């Protein structure tokens, strides 16, 4: 059981490093290509979209890693509700972030993208606090 947990943790760290590496390489490449080979505006948009994609990948996977039931403090119902809520909020926020960078006018793309992600983060935090309060009242 412990070996499985160690293997899972190692896999997660490996995946994180790969995603981080791909993200940094993509950003570096886009910077290098701009402005000679790639339009500066397009490079900026793509950098934002790549950042949104990384956030999207992580947010999408949030509900897929529930805590083990054997862990003493784990209330499986609340844990599941929290993870699903946070996962949905952040996934939609990341999607909005990506879309804003790709399609909004470049002057307002960054601000709009941050609005999407910030709102989703605040909603996720408020939701988690709400679920914890509801759970402690029972």
């Amino acid at each position, binding site marked *: 059981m412990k070996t499985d947990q160690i293997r899972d943790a190692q896999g997660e760290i490996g995946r994180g490093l790969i995603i981080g590496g791909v993200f940094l390489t993509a950003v570096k490449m886009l910077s290098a290509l701009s402005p000679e080979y790639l339009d500066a505006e397009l490079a900026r948009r793509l950098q934002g979209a790549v950042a949104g994609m990384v956030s999207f990948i992580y947010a999408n*996977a*949030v*509900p*897929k890693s*529930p805590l083990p039931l054997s862990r003493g403090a784990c209330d*499986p119902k609340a844990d*599941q509700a929290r993870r*699903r809520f946070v*996962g949905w909020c952040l*996934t939609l926020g990341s999607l909005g972030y990506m879309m804003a960078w790709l399609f909004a006018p470049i002057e307002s793309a960054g601000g709009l993208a941050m609005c999407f992600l910030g709102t989703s983060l605040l909603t996720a935090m408020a939701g988690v606090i709400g679920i914890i309060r509801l759970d402690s009242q029972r």
Partner: protein
Amino acid sequence: MNAVFKALADPTRRRILQLLQRRPMTAGELADPFAVSKPTMSAHFSVLLNADLIQAEKIGRTITYRLKMSVLEEALLGFAHAVGVNVTHNRRTPVLARVKAKGL
């Protein structure tokens, strides 16, 4: 990904996933609303486990099933439910086909 589509193509399995969206449940609790035999339910559980959409944890003598779906997989479940995707008899998964052939 093919395993996920296969798992979501059956209405019984989709209903199991919808029940698990509310809270984690034991095998008995999940089997109650369905008029199917235990081996058929076990076959459905194994298809869902194989697709990594649910997680089984044994505590004592009880197996508790929990949802293990990513946001996109949940969206796919909602879509499959809304559209009413259904498998035809001859396209059933091998496990279910075996159970049906045995007449269990």
